[in-house]
């Protein structure tokens, strides 16, 4: 038996430490630790609820936007506000753009180097690389001189002796199985995606002012007015078309091909329970009009999607650095930060352990895609079936590292295609000085509200309480809290800790296989660590949906 500590886990958002215990070449136990505590919730206290979105948005600059929209939803819920249709469509477009951006960056910039060996790419034959490139997607027209150029660029980089971010990678590891030509294609696409993500972010700038941290969200709707012209609407549509082209030509075929080469990952990094809050309201009827439905799958039972009742959520702190009771509803948590060092049999993380009906739930792309599939969401069903047919895999294989990575590409395709239609529904401003796409309202003195959202990384909830127009309590249960939380009061591991069990480790000094599983969850740890003011005894009634 031996212990492997990965700290820092890189190519993620935020700070994460993962410890594994390896027996006979396989992970026997794993512990997920967040070593950073920022304490955003106490900062929210005593502020105007209408300002909260500015602060919550800064939970994360990677999954930017998601915490702002969830926050304004919690205030709108408290005030019983229905936003104008144009604001709803634009918010959906901003959210969709966030999905496309986030997923492309995860696959190419954060995850790809787990599967692709940069050093091997240096010995690729450019002519043979063209054949591989067109095998992945027949419509690609890149020539051997193009690949020769990419290879030269990488060679010049290697020769300079300044390997920068590629220095000390696990190159040459036996778990890298791609040919030099395959590696070169994917490195070319790594560089291509760097440019594409920059273009995709323009969508946020058009309807949000800038990216990261778009600024047009406001309680009651959106601020956009003078700049919401027909020219802008066309500009946005053109970006959607470009994004669709990239997904069709690169992201989806690259993912399908790569995972087809790494099929053993259909049996590694297993998922059991999945939860999605659902997203993209198509009318003011929520959640019934959601494009992605709300639902829960227990024990891989895809055909039996259950309804979600947020009253069933509890948060455990037995293994987290807080003093207080072990298992409480988000409403009643009495959490006092109390760091005591890493003790895997005691307390070892700043993340709490959320549970649904006492069970760990994985959230994110896999949860959404399987819930969509179980509920018969037609675009998802079609894309999943196509992926399974091309790779020769079965539906049950989706509950894995492979499925998680495939689901991300599949839903990007589904969302990008839907956005092409949504982008046509946006109305230009009539250019009057009164803000046209925001509902006016009377701010109440006190209230409570719940904002739910499906962020790219999964189910997200904000719980708000205020009186005298000041926040008295603000709780956030975020995707990476669900996925990367520690063991609960019954000592049951969190979803990532569970998924890491049985992962093979060929070389303990270079635990590449462990990284593959971790990155398939696309960790976002800055979001995951929160606590509210221990002195606040404010109570909060959780609404059941």
């Amino acid at each position, binding site marked *: 038996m031996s212990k*492997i*500590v990965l*700290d*820092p886990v*890189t*190519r993620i*958002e935020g*700070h994460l430490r993962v410890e594994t215990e390896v027996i006979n070449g396989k992970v026997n136990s794993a512990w997920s630790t967040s070593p*950073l*505590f*920022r*304490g955003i919730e*106490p*900062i929210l*206290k005593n*502020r*105007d609820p*209408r*300002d909260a979105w500015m602060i919550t948005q*800064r939970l*994360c*600059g*990677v999954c930017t936007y998601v915490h702002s929209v969830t926050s304004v939803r919690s205030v709108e819920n408290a005030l019983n506000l229905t936003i104008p249709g144009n604001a709803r469509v634009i918010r959906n477009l901003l959210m969709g753009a966030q999905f496309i951006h986030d997923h492309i*960056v995860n696959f190419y*910039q954060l995850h790809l180097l787990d599967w692709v060996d940069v050093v091997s790419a240096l010995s690729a034959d450019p002519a043979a690389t063209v054949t591989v490139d067109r095998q992945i997607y027949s419509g690609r027209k890149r020539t051997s001189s193009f690949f020769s*150029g990419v290879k*030269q*660029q990488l060679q*010049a*980089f290697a020769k*300079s002796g300044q390997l*920068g*971010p590629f*220095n*000390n990678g*696990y190159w040459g590891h036996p778990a890298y199985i791609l040919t030099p030509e395959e590696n070169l294609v994917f490195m070319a696409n790594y560089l291509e995606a*760097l440019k594409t993500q*920059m*273009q995709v972010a323009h969508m946020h*700038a*058009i*309807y*949000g*002012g*800038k*990216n*990261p941290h778009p600024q047009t969200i*406001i309680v009651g709707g959106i601020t*956009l*007015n003078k*700049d*919401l012209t027909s020219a802008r609407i066309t500009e946005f549509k053109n970006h959607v078309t470009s994004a669709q082209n990239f997904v069709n030509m690169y992201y989806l075929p690259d993912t399908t091909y790569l995972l087809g080469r790494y099929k053993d990952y259909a049996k590694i990094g297993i998922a059991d329970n999945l939860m999605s809050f659902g997203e993209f309201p198509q009318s003011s009827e929520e959640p019934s009009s959601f494009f992605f439905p709300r639902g829960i799958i227990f024990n891989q039972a895809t055909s039996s999607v259950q309804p979600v009742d947020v009253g069933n959520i509890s948060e455990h702190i037995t293994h987290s650095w807080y003093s207080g009771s072990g298992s409480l509803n988000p409403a009643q948590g009495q959490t006092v*930060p109390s*760091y005591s060092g890493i003790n895997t049999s005691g307390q070892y993380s700043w993340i709490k352990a959320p549970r649904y009906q006492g069970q760990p739930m994985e959230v994110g792309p896999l949860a959404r895609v399987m819930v969509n599939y179980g509920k018969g969401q037609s675009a998802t069903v079609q894309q999943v079936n196509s992926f399974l047919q091309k790779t020769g895999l079965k539906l049950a294989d989706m509950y894995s590292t492979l499925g998680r990575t495939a689901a991300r590409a599949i839903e990007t395709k589904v969302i990008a295609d839907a956005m092409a239609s949504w982008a046509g529904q946006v109305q230009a401003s009539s250019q009057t*000085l009164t*803000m046209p796409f*925001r509902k*006016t309202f*009377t701010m109440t003195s006190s209230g409570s509200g719940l904002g739910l959202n499906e962020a790219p990384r999964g189910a997200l909830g904000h719980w708000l309480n205020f009186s005298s127009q000041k926040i008295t309590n603000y709780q956030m249960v975020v995707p990476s809290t669900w996925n990367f939380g520690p063991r609960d009061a019954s000592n049951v591991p969190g979803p990532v800790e569970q998924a890491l069990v049985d992962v093979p480790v060929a070389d303990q000094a270079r635990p590449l296989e462990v990284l593959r599983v971790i990155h398939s969850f696309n960790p976002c740890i*800055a979001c995951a660590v929160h606590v509210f003011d221990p002195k606040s005894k404010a109570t909060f009634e959780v609404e059941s949906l």
Partner: protein
Amino acid sequence: MEKDEKFEDPVEDKIDEMVTKKGVTRRDFMKFCGLMAATLGLEATYIPKIAEALVSGPRPPFIWLQFSECTGCTEAFLRSSSPFIDDLLLNKISLEYHETIMAPAGEAATKSLTDAVSKYSGKFFCVVEGSIPLAGSGNYGMIGGRTMLEIAQEVCPQAKMMISLGTCAAYGGLPAATGGLTGAECVHGALNGLNTIKMPGCPPNPVNFAALIVNYLLFSDFPKLDTLGRPTFAYGSTVHSQCQRRDTEWCLEGFGCRGPSTYHNCPTVKYNDKTSWCVQADCPCKGCAQPGFWDNGSFFNYNGSYGD
């Protein structure tokens, strides 16, 4: 033609080589050089010099540290103007340590940091993103078993140029706002007054960051700084004084816009390839580049025509 004479030679060849290899067009490249000259307030005669600086010499080593942060500054950096983010990463700077981008993890990653600091001591550019938690002996933020404070104390003083990127590193930012429990401090404060160049903004503008690097490559020196340590080329005048809506009926000053009290070049440089910026998107300036902006009162004037 004096300009053409300057343009003969190795530099020209290098530009050609770069253009051929990377599918970057000469026009895009020169446009980028023009943007840098404009941002730095330099005359057009500097454009070929910027081109030369960008294609010559070894790549300056960068060590990028992430402390109590949200990774928004990194994300902003990744939006560096088309077509140059891939080029910036592979050909302009040598990014020796950056946890979001680097291939290695765990001990291998820490080795990259240790090796780079020792190899380039006194020569590397250090970028810090995020503030540094000081309460509880620094235990609110750990990387690789060390506190963020310990890492900063070891690495930052060895840098040739220390850049506090974003409002958190420059002023403490959100973790240091009222109500915070972690004793977060800006880099300058946490490291006993260590001199740093401050580039605040939430997020900071990647064009200004690129211009800071170009300025160094061009003059081997820091740009002119104000008394708060901010480069004057980016933070020399208020948002309001440069705003396209100033003195028009669309001015947002009556709705809590902080443009008049915020020093930043947002209206001219804008964001995401000049696509837009807050006021253009009808959102009053929040003053995100000013010290203490999280605690300067509500972000909107709720008695204005926002209707509530």
